[in-house]
């Protein structure tokens, strides 16, 4: 049962964290341009397109490692449409990044805040899959 204690020792480290691709300046500028367009579209697009745009904005900010902004757009997306998808899965990851930052900074209040957000998200997932 406890073979896992020894099993991984000699193993190649192909399971370490999946590395985010590095974005160069040019790509960054392109992404910011996209953000601007999407944010403008948000005001005029239909409900379905709006959710798509909110999720894409979340994705781009996640790529740019601007966690707060990414969280904001994904949260808005879930608020408006609770269908399970990338907004949920990326939000858990983003909350975890914030949780980690708070833990390193020994900021207890923030730590609990993001742990509670994780709890809330799991509860929403549970409710959504059961059709509540």
């Amino acid at each position: 049962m406890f073979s896992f204690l020894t099993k991984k020792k000699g193993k190649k480290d192909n399971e370490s964290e999946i590395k985010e691709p590095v974005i160069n300046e040019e790509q960054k500028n392109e992404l910011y341009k996209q953000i601007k367009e999407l944010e403008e579209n948000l005001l005029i697009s239909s409900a379905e397109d709006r959710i798509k745009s909110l999720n894409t904005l979340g994705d781009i900010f996640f790529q740019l490692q601007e966690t707060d902004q990414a969280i904001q757009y994904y949260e808005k997306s879930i608020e408006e449409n609770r269908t399970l998808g990338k907004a949920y899965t990326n939000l858990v990851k983003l909350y975890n990044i914030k949780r980690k930052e708070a833990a390193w900074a020994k900021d207890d209040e923030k730590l609990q805040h993001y742990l509670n957000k994780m709890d809330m998200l799991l509860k929403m997932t549970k409710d959504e899959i059961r059709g509540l």
Partner: protein
Amino acid sequence: MSIINFIIENILTQASITIALIALLGLVLQKKSFGQIISGTFKTLLGFQVLSAGSSIIVGSLIYFGKIFTQGFGMQGIIPSIEAINGQAMNELGLGSQIAFTFLAIFIVNIVIARFTKWKYIFLTGQAILWMSTMCTAFGYFAGFRGLTLIIVGGVIGGIFAVAMPAIAQPFVRKITGSNDIALGHFCTIGYLFEAWVAKLVGDPSKSVEDVKLPKSFEFLQDTYLSVMVVMVPLYLVTAFFAGPEFGAQFSGNANYLVHAFLQAIQFVVGVYVLLSGVRLILAEIVPAFRGIAMKLVPDAIPALDCPVLFAYSPNAVIVGFITTTIGTVIAMFALPSFGLAMILPGMLTNFFAGGTAGIFGNVAGGKRGAIIGGIAHGIFITLLPALLITILNSLGFVNATATDVDTVAAALLYAWIITPLMGLF
């Protein structure tokens, strides 16, 4: 010395006080205000009393069910309910204090392992740790451990499980989530791996169940308690019918025996409702305190979260997993008695959460076909394992119930099959 003896004999043996003191410790360590400490401590005390009340209701209903089932079908019919096991162990068997201390010990061992080894998993599902500490304490007691040894052994075994289970699930979790950021903290992991193994043998991961269109939701499952009721009411009614009106009349007084059976089924659901409210009250104070501490001591921890964390990755697989696991539990219900084991009735909540999560593992390992065949195998597996515990649970004084979460069952079997015989050698 007499003061210490008084504390040990009269205070620490009172489970409600022990649990409240643990909450107090957590709140003090979090540097909460005086008012918050007092209110948190008393809420925990209250939580334990609510849990005990819930347990008494469940036991009353289970005793009745046990009698009519034996009369009706000539064998023991067991309801799988980890809540019922926890309630009985904490309340009726008087192991509440030991369970509370073991809960704390599991948390500490988990932090120590995560802090000093490369396995950085911190198990954050408080309820699951409570179930684990229940099984470690009950089966440690069966193995002959008492006092501090019971708690330390339980803490070490439970703590190792709290790290080992997320660790062994992680290769699949990585495949499902595409990252190593989060882990799965749900003590049904051995079942998930079993399903993945079966799915790998029979399936093809390239044909995912997510490509199929499935019904969006299951309305009868919208409410936890309603879903328990949907199963318990027919179960009690059919059993009472087979036990017959004469036998039923001795319990029902002036009421009709079937009406009485119906009300007893509702009583069971009420018991679960009350017990879980108590558990929530207790954990609401204890868990934030200790997970805050854990996260600060191991800032690079990989949080092991409750099973819904995977649902959004593969919603279809959850539904397929639930249905196929239920089919498997029904097959096992009829098959196990012919092997001389007790009849284990299907537990719908486990089927949904454990079955649903197992479906995701089945799908990632063996696609559509893997999820379906693996799911049925999973249902049989999670019924067989708890069935193996019945003799010991009966001898310990548990009434008509068995544990559900298979990792806690595995821990119990570790005590029963390895530690108890070893203890006999000394």
